[in-house]
């Protein structure tokens, strides 16, 4: 596929519309990434102000979602896009839903981090959570890169990476159960940290979803609920449209 994927329309303003809506998705992605980074930072540095700020700023993400949603509806209504353009619009509509949810999870992490900031902290300073967060951050960044570059190959890599995140989440959960049995006084704090782990794992899932939309956008193949081996075989035989 060429760099100017949408450069084949007679109507120039159609191209511009598509390009604009895609750019705003990535701008929204940038904002979500920032929210996520700040939420994790507030957890690592016990910075309750930053955590509350993340929670307060979630409305910006929501506002962008509504704006992009409206823009997509307008394009659907006025341009009746077909083929790859239609796939793009559908993928964008789904992507922003997932991005908005990532924003919500970041908000929740920010809120809980702000609570945890004023409590006693474990000696590891939540190292396992920060590790998981680093993986998820790479996933989120890679997902948006794949979306920007329409790079189905790296999108598939990220879909695979989600398993690691799921495993890590499992481990953290088991660890938390052990902590709670050892010291019942820490239960409320440990419960909070499982919530954070849960949010991180959910963000990983949302990234995986977005990557699936990227593959759909590029190859026109729906790869949800399909085994990865079959997906790769299907994609390698399909011509890029």
């Amino acid at each position, binding site marked *: 596929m060429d760099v*100017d994927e949408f450069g084949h329309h007679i109507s120039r303003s159609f191209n511009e519309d598509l390009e604009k809506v*895609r*750019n705003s998705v990535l701008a929204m*992605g940038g904002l979500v990434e920032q929210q996520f980074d700040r939420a994790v930072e507030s957890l690592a540095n016990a910075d309750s102000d930053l955590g509350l*700020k993340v929670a307060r700023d979630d409305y910006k993400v929501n506002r962008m979602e509504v704006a992009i949603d409206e823009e997509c509806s307008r394009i659907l209504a006025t341009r009746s896009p077909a083929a790859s353009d239609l796939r793009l619009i559908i993928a964008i509509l789904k992507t922003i839903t997932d991005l908005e949810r990532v924003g919500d999870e970041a908000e929740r992490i920010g809120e809980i981090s702000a609570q945890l900031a004023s409590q006693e902290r474990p000696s590891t300073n939540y190292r396992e959570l920060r590790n998981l967060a680093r993986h998820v951050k790479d996933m989120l*960044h890679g997902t*948006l890169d794949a979306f*920007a570059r329409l790079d189905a190959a790296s999108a598939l890599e990220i879909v695979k990476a989600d398993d690691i995140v799921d495993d890590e989440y499992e481990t953290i959960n088991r660890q938390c159960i052990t902590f709670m049995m050892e010291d019942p006084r820490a239960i409320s704090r440990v419960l909070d940290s499982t919530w954070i782990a849960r949010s991180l794992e959910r963000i990983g899932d949302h990234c995986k979803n977005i990557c699936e939309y990227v593959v759909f956008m590029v190859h026109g193949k729906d790869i949800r609920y399909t085994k990865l081996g079959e997906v790769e075989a299907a994609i390698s035989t399909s011509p890029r449209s």
Partner: protein
Amino acid sequence: MPRRWIRQFFILFAWLGLAAAFGLWIDAVAWSMVGGLLLYVGHMLFRLYQLDRAITEGVRVPGLITVGLWPELQAKVYNLRRKSRERKRRHLRLRREVRESTGAIADAGVILNAAHEIVWFNRAAIRLLGLTEAHDVGRRLENLLRNPEFVAYLPSPREEPLIIASPVERDRMLSIQVIPYGLEQSLVIARDVTGQVQLERTRRDFVANASHELRSPLTVIGGYLDALVFEEELSRSWQGPLHEMVRQVQRMTQILRDLIELTRLESAEEPASFDFVSVIDILGRIKSEYASRKPPPDLHFDIRSDSGLLGGETEIHSVFYNLISNAVRFTPPGGRIDVVWSSSTDGAAFSVRDTGIGIAAEQIPRLTERFYRVDPGRSRGTGGTGLGLAIVKHALQRHEAHLEIESVEGEGSTFRCVFPNDRVVRRKDAV
């Protein structure tokens, strides 16, 4: 007409003459002339073919006839080809050198067109910005560097660079500068400033910690000194030194307070809050404080606007107070100080004009450095911590406002704070 063309015509006529003579001999002049012309045209076509090959393939075919138009044309084509080959080689070498040298630069450089699409980038951009050679030429830079601060910075770059975390590694800090050039093209330069940012942070932390640590022993000393001043058993001769010690402890406390305030302002990354601040109230408080001083300085308040500001109350108070107290300290008795608060449609301004000693032009840019003294000998005696203007500068920065300084040595100075419209509340808005 060049000589080769004349020669070519000469050959043509000679050939036709020969054909005519041959025609006379066999008694068929017309046929012989036609045959001769056909031969000539055939020869011409053959030569054209040779020329074509010489141009497209660079093959040099030596002709039988070495005079006239064709051999010369052929030689010319050959020379042109050779020259262009040499030029190409030179260009390639130059391009390789440019590419190697820009690749060796440690700063990332990206060239963007008017639509912010990537035209070119160097090797450091791969490392620092995470661009990839296979995918990214022609893509919008904002789509790959999605940091909201950068997205806001790129279309309207300020003079000072933007400092953001690298998208590749979060611990790496980048200083980004955008230089527009040519026809709406721009060059984006990203420099790794991780070390500098860390150093700056260490310095700030050190100052903050040191100030905090010094404050408590100083409080203890101050407390005992206050008690000692009222101790009647102490001989009279100690009264003078004791009072001086109290004064110096107060001064040190003030310096520490200013240092802590300054570090707080410096390390705050967010802009100041947007709480309503009544400028009239602040100026009223400062006015009554100075009115009770003996002797009261010649202060004139001229409040031309009832607008308020949006920001932090303590910060704005400290800006106004610092500027007015500076003016009072540097204006000799008999001088006059005018404080003006005014607003227009573009924003609002607070200015303090004095008839004091003034500042030399070359000193003005350095005034806001901490502990900078225009005249070390004189100003320490006038009190003050040397941090006032640094605090003013940072507090204003947090309100997107800036400080303008005009001064004529010996005649006086004007310090003006200019607030942007977003920070100004007009009377009717406030209600």
